[in-house]
C-alpha cells in the first residue's frame, strides 16, 4: 500500500509540476519568436536570452522532478 502511494505521489508530483513550466516555456518561446520575426538582426541575442529564460522557467518543473526522484529512490 505504502509503495503504491509512493508511486502515485511521484506520478502526481511530476504531472502537476510539469504543467506550469510547460505553459511558461511555451510563452517564452512564442514571445521570443515573435521578437525574432520582427527584428531578425537581433535573432542571435534573443535566442541566447531565450535559452536562459527557459532554463529559469524550467526550474519549478525541475524542483518537482527532484521531489519525484526523491520519492522514488530515497524515501
Amino acid at each position, binding site marked *: 500500500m505504502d509503495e503504491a502511494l509512493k508511486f502515485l505521489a511521484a506520478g502526481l508530483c511530476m504531472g502537476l509540476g510539469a504543467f506550469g513550466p510547460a505553459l511558461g516555456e511555451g510563452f517564452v518561446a512564442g514571445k521570443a519568436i515573435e521578437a525574432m520575426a520582427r527584428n531578425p538582426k537581433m535573432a542571435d541575442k534573443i535566442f541566447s536570452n531565450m535559452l536562459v529564460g527557459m532554463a529559469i522557467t524550467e*526550474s519549478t518543473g*525541475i524542483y518537482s*522532478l*527532484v521531489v519525484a526522484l526523491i520519492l*522514488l*529512490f530515497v524515501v
Partner: protein
Amino acid sequence: MEGSLNISVAPEAILTIGGIELSSSMISSVFVTLILFGFVFAVRSRLKIIPGNLQIVAEGVVGFFYDQLLQAYGGDAKKAKRYLALIVSLFLFIFVSNQFTIIPLTQSIVVDGVNVFRAPTSHFSLTLALAIITFLVSNVIAFSMSPIKWMGNFVKIGSILKIRKPADVGQALLDLFLGVLDIVGELAKVISLSARLFGNVFAGEVMVVVIASLSVFTRYFVPVPFYALGLLSGLIQALVFAVLSLSFIAGMHNTIEEAVEQGKEEKANKKKAMAT
C-alpha cells in the same frame, strides 16, 4: 524499482578514510579540476597576438562574462575584473562536470560493482556547495562594504525611525514584513540555484538509464538523442548558473552601494540645512 535499475541519489562511497567517505563524484571532481588545469596551461603556453583555436575559445568565454559583468556593475571595469575569475571558474567547472560522463571509458571503470566516476554535479552536496559560495560572496562582501546598510536591507529599522504620524505605522510594518520576505528570498536563492543544476544533470542521467533498461532493443542507439539533449542542457545549465550567480552578486553589491551613497547625500543635505 529494484533489480535492473541501479539509481541512487546519494553517490556511492568507494573508500572510507578516517570516517570520511570518498565518493565517486568526489573522485571525478578532482579529475575535472585536473582537466581545467590542463586547459589553463595549454592556453597560457600558447598565448599569441594572433590567437590560435584554444585561445579563441578561452577569450570568447572570458569576454562573454566580462561583458555581462560590465553591464551588471554599470560599466565599472575594476569591479568587473575582480569578480571575473570567480564567475568564469564557476562556469568552466560546472560545464566540464556536466559533460564528464561523455569522456569515453570513464563509465566502464567499476570497482566492487560501483562506478568510480560519476558526473560531479549529479551529487547534491557539490551543487549546494557552489550555491553557498555564491551566497557567501554576495553577502559577506556586501557586509564588509557597510554592515549597517546590509542589516538595514533585511531588517528595516529605518522606516520605524521615520514614523512621524500614525499613518506611517502601516508603511513601517509593511517594510518590516518585506524585510522578512527578503531574508527568505535570499535563502531560497541558494536552494533554487543548487536544486536546478542538480535536478537537470541527475534527471538526464536517470533518463538515459531508464531508457537503456527498457528492453534489449533500446540499449544501444535509442539513448543517443538523450545524450545529445544532455550535452545541450549541461551547457545551458552551466551558463544559467554563472549568469544567475553573477546577477545575485552584482545586485546585492549595487543595492548596498546605492544605500551608502544615499546615506552620504542625506548627511550632506542635513549639513547644508544646518549651515543655512
